């Protein structure tokens, strides 16, 4: 090829792939750093001036940050679940997307931990959660599993780095990458175990709050039903998120990166899990109405204060649940790319709304008869510091896509 037109860093590109000029790539990264810096400013304000710079208050100790945390972790479930299907269930086709699922997972979990780093009032003591761990606390469970699983993700991500065209030339790294590949099923299995656990614990976080009839669920042994519902909802939407991000990446790359039959496998599985989830969630809701009633809080009391009216239920379970389920279950519908993407969007929004409801609405609903209902909405500091991690993610993804062999089918689908 003629070196004049070849980008300065073309030597780093995956074998036989085409990438834009380095200067354009740098410009792109530059643009991303704009909003990123606003986020950094917000975070610095939180650390420097304390959390009074947010709209959080004593009635809303949890806000956007915690909802987002629960959200991204659920979305990140695509990583472990695809890994599970690929290495444990051995659906070979998924090797074509599992790499990317891992990258997305890394981003989501990094984001979750980053957000917590801003959210807690004494970030310097964040490590007490390990040092002075209280085994009865769902949050402790979450912390341990998430950290461990994040390490697993990093190990799953490592071979991708090592397979970079140049690094791979170095014998040591080449070998290392090879061995990691050998070990991958085991690693994936560990990851799966950890993930099931912390996805559940996240559900436990609101579920165990028996002082909050809106959030409280009875359950199995120490695990409230939300524990299991969260696992199920996470694996029901994780794959959709993977599809969605891949699809968006293709739009930016202006080329197809993954064959559609791969999407179809994930979509089909997603649809079935979503169906199962909706059934169980409905049962849970009915049972919960009874349990809350026992605690003296009638069902209607949860929905008498706007903005949290009955529409919340309809939205979460109907529009953001049943509709994507139908699309995903129906072969013809999900093979229509637009419908598929719509389903993915609805499904992912559904998960996010569910996490918001389980955290923020749980706190908004008054518990004492003489409590005043107050509503909460985040301020720019909370938005910016949360979105910061989206920009970081895009940057990581951009770099990974440019230099790492993430999409095995790219060469075949886009011959030079």
């Amino acid at each position: 090829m003629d070196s004049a037109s070849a980008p300065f860093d073309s030597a780093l590109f995956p074998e036989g792939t085409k990438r834009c000029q380095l200067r354009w790539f740098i410009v792109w990264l530059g643009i991303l750093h704009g909003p990123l810096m606003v986020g950094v400013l917000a975070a610095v304000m939180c650390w420097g001036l304390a959390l009074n710079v947010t709209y959080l208050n004593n009635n809303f100790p949890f806000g956007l940050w915690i909802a987002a945390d629960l959200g991204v972790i659920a979305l990140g479930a695509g990583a472990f679940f695809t890994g599970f299907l690929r290495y444990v269930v051995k659906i070979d086709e998924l090797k074509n997307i599992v790499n990317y699922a891992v990258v997305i997972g890394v981003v989501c979990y990094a984001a979750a931990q980053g957000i917590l780093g801003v959210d807690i009032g004494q970030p310097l003591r964040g490590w007490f959660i390990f040092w002075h761990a209280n085994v009865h606390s769902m949050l402790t469970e979450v912390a341990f599993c998430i950290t461990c699983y994040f390490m697993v993700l990093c190990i799953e991500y490592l071979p991708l780095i090592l397979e970079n065209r140049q690094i791979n030339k170095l014998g040591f790294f080449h070998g290392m990458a090879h061995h990691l590949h050998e070990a991958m099923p085991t690693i994936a299995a560990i990851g799966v175990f950890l993930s099931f656990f912390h996805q559940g614990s996240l559900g436990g976080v609101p579920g165990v709050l028996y002082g909050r009839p809106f959030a409280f669920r009875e359950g199995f042994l120490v695990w409230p039903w939300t524990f299991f519902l969260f696992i199920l909802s996470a694996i029901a939407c994780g794959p959709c998120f993977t599809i969605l991000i891949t699809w968006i990446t293709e739009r930016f790359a202006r080329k197809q990166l993954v064959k559609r039959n791969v999407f179809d496998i994930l979509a089909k599985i997603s649809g079935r899990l979503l169906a199962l989830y909706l059934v169980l969630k409905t049962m849970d809701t009915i049972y919960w109405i009874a349990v809350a009633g026992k605690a003296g809080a009638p069902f209607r009391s949860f929905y008498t204060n706007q903005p949290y009216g009955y529409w919340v239920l309809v939205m979460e379970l109907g529009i953001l649940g049943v509709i994507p389920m139908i699309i995903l279950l129906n072969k013809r519908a999900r093979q229509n790319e637009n419908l598929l993407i719509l389903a993915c969007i609805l499904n992912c929004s559904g998960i996010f709304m569910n996490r918001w409801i389980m955290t923020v609405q749980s706190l908004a609903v008054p518990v004492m008869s003489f409590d005043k209902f107050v509503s909460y909405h985040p301020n720019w500091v909370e938005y910016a510091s949360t979105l910061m991690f989206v920009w970081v993610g895009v940057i990581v993804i951009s770099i990974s896509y440019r230099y790492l062999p993430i999409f095995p089918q790219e060469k075949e689908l886009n011959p030079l």
Partner: protein
Amino acid sequence: MKEAHHGEGDTKTYRYGMVVNLDKCTGCGACMVACMAENNLPFRKDNSDRLRSQLWMRVYKISNGQPFPDADISYIPRPCQHCEGKDHHHATPCVSVCPATATDYSHETGIVSQIYTRCFGCRYCMAACPYHVRVFNWWDPVWPKGMKNYLNPDVSVRMRGVVEKCSFCYHRLQRARNKAYAEERRELHEDEYQTACTQACPAGAITFGDLDDPHHKVYKLKKDPNAFRLLEKLGTNTKVYYVSTRDWVRKAAHAYTGKNQGIMPG
């Protein structure tokens, strides 16, 4: 002097709690101020936002929602309820969720503690408490020039980013213990350990003591036919009882049931 530790060595255990007579409570607020003065609570130039200001003792003003002239109001002083919880699954709401063991339920005293230097500000405990007892330090505490002169050395001053709450004036228990110890006594008399709010109340509306000790006033008072606890049905098993001869006030103890009920913030 060797000082007595948190109950070790004492044969007797206590279940400290309160009974508040709402017929006597005048809503004067002396308990709130006494608590702030005793426990080094900070204040700001504008404290009018209750959602951001710290009160370990908060006196709620509630109304029966009836039109003039049938309207009625009552006050409900609300310290930490020092929930005992039901069982292993229903342990003290806040304690069971704290990931860093920064708050604990003492079975020697029935007091729910809070370690400020341990708390890292995740605020999970606040989400767990249905009584809005726990407050967060949204700011670093700042005292105007000269003001730090009155700070009480028995209570550590909290820093930004941590959660705090009523401790049943734990330091007063320690003081009493040390005194009893010096006099080679194992048991504390009722009047040796009283909380600052109880002591201050001009109406004598608050009674504090060992709920399990037949010799303590609270033992009988809690059995008053008009006695009740807040949100009893949740199973938090609180140790703060209230007494009111007014039905609508007793009704206020139950959970929020939506807008169509009489009781509302006054």
